[in-house]
Every structure is written in C-alpha cells, then in structure tokens.
C-alpha cells in the first residue's frame, strides 16, 4: 500500500507520521534526536511503520468475530512482545559493542575479568527484560538509551560489587558503546520480528496468526517522504521534499482541528506563534529570535537542576497552592532564581508553578507579536503535554483574549510530522 510519511527532526525528539492516500493516519513514531539526525530520522520512520503494522493488524482483527472486544488487549500483548524482541536485539548489539571496547591501558591485565562482568550484567539484563515488558509494567521511557541505561546502572553496579571490580570501568565502556549503538541505523526485518513476537504472544494465537500474517504481507511502500524541523537539511532527500516546520505545524494543527486559526507551538528550542487561514495555509508567524528562553529546554534544564524527570515537573507544579514569582525566562538565570527561592524556604511545587508561568508569559509575548489569538486556538509541541503549562496558558488566554476554544491533542507532539505527511499526500495525490 502507498504510504506518505512526514518526519519532523526536532532538537529533542524526532517524530514521524505515516498516512494513507486518504489522509488517514496509520502510524506514529518517536525517538530521541541524539547527535545523529540520519539515524533519528530512520528510527522514527521505522517506529511509525511499526505503528502502521499495528493499525493494519487492528483492521485485520476487526474481521475476526471471535476476538471481538479483546483486540486492544491482543495487540498490546503483541506489541509488548515485539518491543521485547527489538530490545533484546539492541541489547545483543550493545553487549558485542561493549566487549569490543574493552581495550586500552586502563583495562591492562583485567580484560577477561571485565568481559566476564559485562557478560553477567547483560545476562541479567536479558532476564530482567521480561519484567520490563510484562503486561502492566510501567516504563519511564520507550527509548532504548533510557531503558537499557537505568537497568545497566543498577545491575552493573551489583555485578561489579560481587566481582570486586570498579563499576567505573564498565561504566566507561558502556558510555562509549551506547553512543555507537544508538547511532547505528536500525536493524531491518520488522516483519520477522513481528513473527517472532507472534510466537511468544499468549493470547488467542490460533485465531490471530492468520490475519496478522496476512496484514504483515501487505507491502508498505514509501511513496513520498516530507521532512521538516531543525534537522531537515540533513535528510537525505531532495529539496522539494523539505518543508519548513512553520508550514508543517500550521497544516498539522489544521488537520487535527480544522477550525484552528492560531497555533502556538512550544518545542525544545523554539516557540512559534502561527496564524492560519481556513484551509491551513500559514498567514503569518513569529518565532523567538536570538534567544531560546522559555522553550522546552528550559523545563529540561529545570528538571536537571531539581534532579527530577521532565515528566514529573507538571504534576508537581499542579500541587502548588501558592505561586512563587519567577521573573527570569533566561534558562540559566531561572536556575539561579530557583536556588534562591529554595534557600528562602519556598516549596518546590510553588516554585515550579512560577517557572511554568514564566514560560507561558514568554509564549504570550510571541503570540501577540504574531497578531494575537483567534478562535480556535491550538496548542502543540512537547510542552502541550505539560498540564501545569496548559493551566497557565488557559488562564492567560482567557485574561487576554476572552473565551477562545483551546485545542490540545494528546498526540500534539506529532503536529509537525502530521503536516509533513499531509504535504506528502498532496504532492502525489493532487
């Protein structure tokens, strides 16, 4: 079948969306952008194609009356097993790479001992992977680096202690190797991995196998790919396949909410205010210039400063009862203000609430530069997932622009890629 793909190479994450020729979204994929945009593009595309396969399975299983009502569960089981197959494959790659990297003066005379420790660590990692992908297991992240990394730290340290070897030795090998493995283009044979996953799947194997195999046999043809985002020039395709992320975000927001007239996108390193016409064509835009204060990275930095996960910031800020005023939107200065307020005895949640407000105040200024907020207003980008940021935004929009319908799609992080995929369809179909 013909697939139209949009890839949005952001500074933090790379997103891909696969569409069919009728502008229906078939799949979405996301990965961390790393320092290697080529690999990030390839991985996100593969992830979107994996998701596309799941959509095709869902469609195929819709025709099997015996599994009616349990399709979601069956697919979740299949996906978990697929993820584990994929994870184990990358883990093997990481182990091989680590062992190759055990060389040089710092290991002199201890190579065998270090390799033994590594092999034992990876054996336990493989064993633990079953729990990682068990039904109901909560994973902090789906990126290999995060999954393998946090386990490696815990398990590796224990193994080293038992063996009487310094953990820093294998940590050094790990750090070197994870970058290599992460930057290697993804292994192919997605279909083979699904078949292996199917073998391990527990639910209704007999009923499911035929429709899943049939769906796997449908070739996914990459008819047209459009790239956008900061890394777009790195994409290995011709210029006409590259669109600015302003256009893609405008069109993507229109695809999600056709009534959209104003779009706010807060990404990792930029904040965009975009006005679109009734057909999703960009009329005007403004972006932060010369300074990335108040962008997504700001929250990333604050999370590091507070020793928290990025996704924990919003929920904690929501618990605030009193807002601490943070004046600086300068990322670095905000760090200083944060420590200052902590020293004054302010609560973390109250300070965080103030920081979220600071970000949104900056966005409000960009919105007014872009011509204000018109009904409907669509908020996109990674920060749109942050409930505390959304709460402040709603407040300030209401204060400044009155009653405006505010749209936030749970998949808003894919807005740019969605716009890109739509451009891809238009390039071929129209």
């Amino acid at each position: 079948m013909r697939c139209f793909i949009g890839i949005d190479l952001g500074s933090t994450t790379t997103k891909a969306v696969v569409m069919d020729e009728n502008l229906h979204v078939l799949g979405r994929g996301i990965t961390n952008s790393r320092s290697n945009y080529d690999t990030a593009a390839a991985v996100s595309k593969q992830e979107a194609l994996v998701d596309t396969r799941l959509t095709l399975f869902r469609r195929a299983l819709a025709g099997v009356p015996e599994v009616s009502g349990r399709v979601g569960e069956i697919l979740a089981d299949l996906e978990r097993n697929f993820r584990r197959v994929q994870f184990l494959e990358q883990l093997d790659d990481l182990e091989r790479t680590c062992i190759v990297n055990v060389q040089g003066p710092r290991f002199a005379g201890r190579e065998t001992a270090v390799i033994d420790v590594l092999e034992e660590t990876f054996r336990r990692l493989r064993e633990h992977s079953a729990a990682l992908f068990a039904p109901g297991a909560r994973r902090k992240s789906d990126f290999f680096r995060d999954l393998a990394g946090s386990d490696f730290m815990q398990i590796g340290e224990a193994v080293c202690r038992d063996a009487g070897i310094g953990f820093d030795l294998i940590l050094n090998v790990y750090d070197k190797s994870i970058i290599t493995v992460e930057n290697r283009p993804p292994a192919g044979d997605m279909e083979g991995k699904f078949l292996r996953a199917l073998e391990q799947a527990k639910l209704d194997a007999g009923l499911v196998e035929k429709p899943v195999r049939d769906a796997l046999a449908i070739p996914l043809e990459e008819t047209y790919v459009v790239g956008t985002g900061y890394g777009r020039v790195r994409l290995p395709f011709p210029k006409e396949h590259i669109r600015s992320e302003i256009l893609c975000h405008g069109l993507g927001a229109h695809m999600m909410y056709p009534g959209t007239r104003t779009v706010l996108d807060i990404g990792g390193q930029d904040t965009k205010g975009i006005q679109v016409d009734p057909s999703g064509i960009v009329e005007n835009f403004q972006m932060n210039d010369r300074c990335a204060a108040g962008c997504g990275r700001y929250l990333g930095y604050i999370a590091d400063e507070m020793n928290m996960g990025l996704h924990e910031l919003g929920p904690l800020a929501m618990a605030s009862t009193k807002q601490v005023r943070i004046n600086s939107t300068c990322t670095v200065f905000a760090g200083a203000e944060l420590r200052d307020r902590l020293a004054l005895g302010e609560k973390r949640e109250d300070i965080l609430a103030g920081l979220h407000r600071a970000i949104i105040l900056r966005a409000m200024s960009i919105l007014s530069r872009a011509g204000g907020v018109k009904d409907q207003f669509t908020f996109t980008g990674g920060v749109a997932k942050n409930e505390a940021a959304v709460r402040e935004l709603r407040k300030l929009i209401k204060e400044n622009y009155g009653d405006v319908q505010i749209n936030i799609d749970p998949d808003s992080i894919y807005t740019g890629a969605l716009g890109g995929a739509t451009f891809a369809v238009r390039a071929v179909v129209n």
Partner: protein
Amino acid sequence: MSDAVKEPSMLLQKEMIAKNYEAITSKNETGRKVASTFVPGNLNELLMCFGIVNNLPEINAIQNGMRKLSGSYIMEAEKGGHSEDVCTYVKADIGMMGKGNIAPNGKPFPEPDVLLLSYTGCYTFMKWFELLREQYKCPTLMLHVPYEGDGHATKNMRDYIVRQLREVVIPGLEQVSGVKFDIDRLREALRLSAQAEEHLVWTLEQGKRKPSPIDAYFGGVYYIGPIFTAFRGTPEAIAYYEALRKEVQARIDAGQGPVTPDGGSFDDQKYRLVVEGPPNWTNFREFWKMFYDEGAVVVASSYTKVGGMYDLGFRHDPDHPLESLADYCLGCYTNRNLPTRIDILAKYVEEYEADGLLINSIKSCNSFSAGQLMIMKEVERKTGKPGAFIETDLVDPRYFSAANVKNRLESYFQMIEQKRRGAAKAA
C-alpha cells in the same frame, strides 16, 4: 568559499573608495583637511567647496564588518566600558581607535580637523560625536535637522536649517579650512549631484522589471555607494553610474537577473521582496546567498534611501543650493516618521509588485528598530501581502545566527509559495 565575483562597476567603486582613503590618510603630507561626518544628511558638496576630505565612520565600520575585523573592535570598545546594547557601528569605530585606528589601506587614520554632525534621524550620532570630540578635541559643527514628526517638512524647518548653514556650518568650515565659501562652486557640485542622482533612480527603478536585473538590497548597497559617501557632486560618481547603467542595461537586454557573488546571473526569481532595515555586514555574502539560493530577489529596499530619497523626486538643485541641502537632510528615510515609512514601504510592495515585506531588524539599533513590528503589520494590512521579521545586527558577528535566520527566511518563502498555490486553487 571562492572569491566573490565582482562586476566592473564594483571594481571601479573599489578604486574610488581606495582613493578616498588615500586622501584621508595622506592629509599630513598633502595638507588637506579632513571632516568626519555621517551618511544620512551628509553634506559632501559643501565640504568639497572647502577642499575638505570626507571621512565617514559608519562606512569605516561597514568596511571593518565585511573584512571580519569588527568583532575584535567591538570587544575592545566593550573593554573600555561601552555596554553590550550600544550601537555596534559606534563600538566598531571606538574599538578601531583603540587598536591603532588603522584605515582599510593599512595606514593610520589621521586626526580629523572637524566633526560635522548633520544628524538626521539617528540620535546616537550625537553621542557618537561626543565621544570623538572627547578623543580628538577638534571643533564640532552641528547642523540640527528637525525630525519630520508630522510626516512632512515645513518652510520653517527648511529656513531653520538654511540659517544654521549660513551662520554656523559655513563660517565654521571656512575657519577650519581657511578657504572662503564660494556659492558657485557649490552650485557646480550640486549640478553634478543631480546628474548622478538621476542615474541612481533609474538603476533602482529597474527592480520593477521581471526578472529584476538588479538586487535592490544586496546589490543596492553597491549602487548607492558613491552617492551616499564621498562622491556625490563629483565627476567620478557620474562615471561610475554610467558604467553601472551599462551593466544593468546589458542584463535587461539579455533578460538576465543580477550577478551574484558566486558568479552567473540570478535569473530564476521566484520571490520578489521589499526589505526594510540595513543588511548584516559581518556575514554579508552568506546572508545574500540565503536569498538567491531560495530564488528570492529584493526589488526595493528602504536601506538604499537612508542617504536620500531620490526616487520620490528630490534632486539637489543648483538654483537653490542651501535650500536644497536643507530639503535633502529633511527628506532622508531615517528622518521620516513611522506612518510615512509605512506608506513608502506599502507603495514599494505595490509598485514593484513584490510578494511581501521582509524586515531585518537590527539588534543594536534602538532608534531605527523601534516600531518595525508595527510597520510590518500595517504594511501587511495595507497590501494584503505577508510580511516577515528577522533579527540580526550591523557589525557584531555575535548577533548573526545563521541557522535561525535561514530557518525563518525559508519558512517565509515557503509561506509565500503556499499562499500563491492557495490563491491559484481558489481562482
């Protein structure tokens, strides 16, 4: 990057500029007097009447920007206590003085004999010359040009300037130079000015053609060179413009676009733009390339009017010499108020059939950048054409973020393209 391809007129101008630097730096041998003065409202013809050589600190800053020297000069000035927000032309000049005050010809700049401050529109000029006066302890002549706050000049303003010329500037220059003022000499220079101005207007108006045989911004800064600097009122300027016209005419005849620094003519013009604001000088060629690589040609710009709005009909007039110098000063683009700037830019978008207005806002220019966002919105409203806003700096390399500027420009061009397609579909 290969060496920039230059047209014969550019080389001719280069020789002229070199000759002027030679005249400035050899003043101690030749005994000629040197005046430091500014581009907008520059009174070159008047200085010529006294045999005074014209040295323009802004042009020195531009030269140093293009020759990648301004960055270290600016840091030198900052070491001396000039803050980060100060106009970078000023800091490049002050820093150059701190680092030996070497002219582009490699020889030291001599001390000026007079500072002629005919300040038009830019309030920083006054502070700049205060610093120079402190350094050089030479006479300062100030010509106060009233701002056209109501959008037009009055007879009162003109009389006020003429009176200052008669009572302050001319006697002052006589004293500095020891030469008696001869109004017929001024008339002769103004006659030559008007001829060169005629050529300049013809050149800039060729931007109305499709394809445009000129780039009215990146190419435009060369076209305005002689008239905006030390050559207005000289036969050399006329010779330059005759050569320039021939080149432009040849491109018109061949249906070609302007020559880019990469060589070859830029014919495949997809977007026609009007640009407001000066170019960035530290990354001039890289900046220009971002336009022609994407098919964007600038058909009109306001920067090419900061040293005189000849396209609106003004010419220096030998029959009314002092009055026409007054009118010239009053009418420079920098001395116009915001509503007038909006009208001028909207008119350019329409008359030059442009796709929209692009503003390059200058980070360190407080007097000229203020209000530009409003200008953009108003021009958009009046013309129905989309505008865009980028920010760079004059000569501070730290404020040119190539990736960001390119990203915004590409977005703007694609937005124009998308709007066109949308319009075509609707029709």
